[in-house]
């Protein structure tokens, strides 16, 4: 009797384990009102997701959209794991282009080449980034690019007219930042704050000099680094080492008026709009074009698009495609712009919608900032991108902390990329 009990228990335990590991039960056929699931991040603090979903559901009442909220920092790893496990979440947000190319080349996404062919590449900023050897697996709905945020009050105190920021070179930027630096100790006001990311130096110089971030020869970054290191040395910038070890947030530096100028992506405007509205910050802010190498009136900046893709394992692929197309359409772009975010589709009408939002900086400087002539992809897409990215980040740390001289740091960067990745 006792032995019997033991075998039964063991059997039950094994069975429980098996069923726990077993796959999900088949879903009902796609009839009547459908529900599609969409993988996204930080739903509560990323307003454009709700704007797109609400807009889409209003236009397509027969389809219900259910967000699958994932922590932003874990998003790429989580989606990779989900897909490896055969997950059927219908729509996947492509947080960055490098991850997109990984999912696309592995064949985890449904081809959207025909849908992409309907879009005008001249109007869709960032669309080309999704070209994987002639095939498209995602459509962009959002495009962020870098601009220069400035503190209006601090500029006024220094007697600098805002119009001066319309055609800034990096040399002007450095001089202006120097003149805006004042105070000491806890009351110090920095002329500018450059966050710890490598892109702020590296992607800027790649975009504006035409240098190739995957090329293995990085001398084109020299001037931009020399300027940044110079500003850091003269106390105009918060030292990189401090910013990194204290995990300083750029939002704190700018919104508490600790720094007058801030080169940053357009996504920050959405944060500033929301914080101004809720009274979290009282900073008077404006947006200017990213400073340039030459003052020829043309604006070249860098940025990266965000897109929606359809999971190949989706059981509602038609509805999912509809959603992806709607998000990048004019209607979708309007919804995105109304949420305070820059959509991929850039027409005068969409820009007007954006500028009509309460709190968005208006005027010629801002209008020029939001209409750059050229947006270069932040990191070129290739199977080497993430390896090169790691090396560039490590060398950036060494140069910015002064552990390597600028020349040695750049030489080592080139050498490592050639030896380890090439």
């Amino acid at each position: 009797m006792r032995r019997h009990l033991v075998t039964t228990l063991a059997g039950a335990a094994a069975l429980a384990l098996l069923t726990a590991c077993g796959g999900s039960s088949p879903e009902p056929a796609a009839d009547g009102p459908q529900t599609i699931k969409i993988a996204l991040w930080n739903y509560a603090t990323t307003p454009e997701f709700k704007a797109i979903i609400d807009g889409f559901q209003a236009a397509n009442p027969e389809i219900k959209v259910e967000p699958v909220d994932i922590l932003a920092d874990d998003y790429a790893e989580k989606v990779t794991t989900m897909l490896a496990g055969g997950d059927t979440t219908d729509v996947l947000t492509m947080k960055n282009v490098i991850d997109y190319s990984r999912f696309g080349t592995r064949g985890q996404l449904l081809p959207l080449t025909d849908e992409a062919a309907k879009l005008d590449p001249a109007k869709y900023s960032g669309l080309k980034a999704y070209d994987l050897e002639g095939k498209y697996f995602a459509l962009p709905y959002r495009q962020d690019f870098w601009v220069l945020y400035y503190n209006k009050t601090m500029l006024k105190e220094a007697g600098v007219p805002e119009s001066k920021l319309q055609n800034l070179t990096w040399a002007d930027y450095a001089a202006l930042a120097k003149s805006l630096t004042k105070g000491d100790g806890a009351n110090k006001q920095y002329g500018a704050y450059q966050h710890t990311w490598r892109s702020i130096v590296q992607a800027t110089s790649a975009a504006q000099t035409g240098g190739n971030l995957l090329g293995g020869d990085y001398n084109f970054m020299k001037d931009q680094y020399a300027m940044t290191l110079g500003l850091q040395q003269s106390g105009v910038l918060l030292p990189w080492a401090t910013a990194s070890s204290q995990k300083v947030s750029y939002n704190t530096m700018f919104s508490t008026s600790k720094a007058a100028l801030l080169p940053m992506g357009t996504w920050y405007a959405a944060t500033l709009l929301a914080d101004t509205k809720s009274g979290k910050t009282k900073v008077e802010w404006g947006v200017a074009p990213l400073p340039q190498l030459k003052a020829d009136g043309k604006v070249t900046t860098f940025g990266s698009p965000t897109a929606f893709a359809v999971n190949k394992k989706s059981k509602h692929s038609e509805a999912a495609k509809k959603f992806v197309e709607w998000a990048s359409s004019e209607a979708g772009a309007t919804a995105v712009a109304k949420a305070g975010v820059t959509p991929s589709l850039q027409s005068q009408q969409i820009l007007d919608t954006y500028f009509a939002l309460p709190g968005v900086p208006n005027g010629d400087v801002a209008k020029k900032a939001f209409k750059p002539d050229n947006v270069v992809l932040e990191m070129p897409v290739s199977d080497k991108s993430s390896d090169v990215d790691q090396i560039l980040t490590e060398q950036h740390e060494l140069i910015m902390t002064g552990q390597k001289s600028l020349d040695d740091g750049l030489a080592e960067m080139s050498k490592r990329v050639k030896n380890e990745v090439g």
Partner: protein
Amino acid sequence: MSAPAQAPATRRRSRSRTWIGWSFILPNFLGFAALTLIPVIASLALSFLDWDSYSTPRWVGLDNFERMIHNDNFWTALRNTAYYAVGHVPLTLAAALGFAVLLNQKLKGVRFFRTALFFPYITSLVAVAVVWNMLLSPDLGPVNQFLRAIGIDNPPGWTTSTTWAMPAVIVASVWRDLGYYMILYLAGLQTIPAELYEAAEVDGATGWQRFRYITLPGLRPTTFFVLIMLTISSFKVFDLIQVMTEGGPGRATLVLSQVIYREGIVQGRFGYSSAVSMVLFVIVLTITIVQFRLQKRNET
């Protein structure tokens, strides 16, 4: 056993005992098998494959290991891991032993200090790392402000210096781990008979002699256990470094488990990542076996 009639009954009883024994460890074993044993075996197999977690795995033989031998990141990480272990193991051991002996006395408030020293071990690691980063911040950190106040003009840059980042990480990890090993030592100290100390005192042994010839030998089994656990945990170090320095500046604190994480979870090269983890496994296993051998020799 001699009577043939009894044999089947005995055998039956012993078989049923075996079953009961198995059934007791079964729940634990199932968990161990599903979450540890099978993945470990799978990772051994994976280290000979090329697999991105999605497409069909491809047999590549020893390619992953060959790539590892020629990979600069791997050797840097291996050196750094050894550096970390060489710093972390003896320092933690000495600190844990020192505090255990100190707090084994009948003093007022001894419980408070024991708790205080154990506290870092149960504190959230991310919070620990962030606080240490702030303490060690080159310009504004209290550590460097103190160093400047006592006349050191050029204090180290700690986590932002390639030379000082690893010592900084080691100090933080010693502080974090010593409480746990101190508890183990405190337990070990209770097992040493008090008569030995009394006899030694009668014979006129000094405090140091008592420590050297009674306490240390008496603690040998504990020390052995602590040494093994410390070695394994030092080679496996990941979380503290990931939060404090992310392997930087440059690659100054890049350790093997970070290479495994980056290659596998981030880059999706599970074959190569498994190959590195196999090497880590073999290193830890070898060191543990050597320690066991030495311990055996000491005992005989």
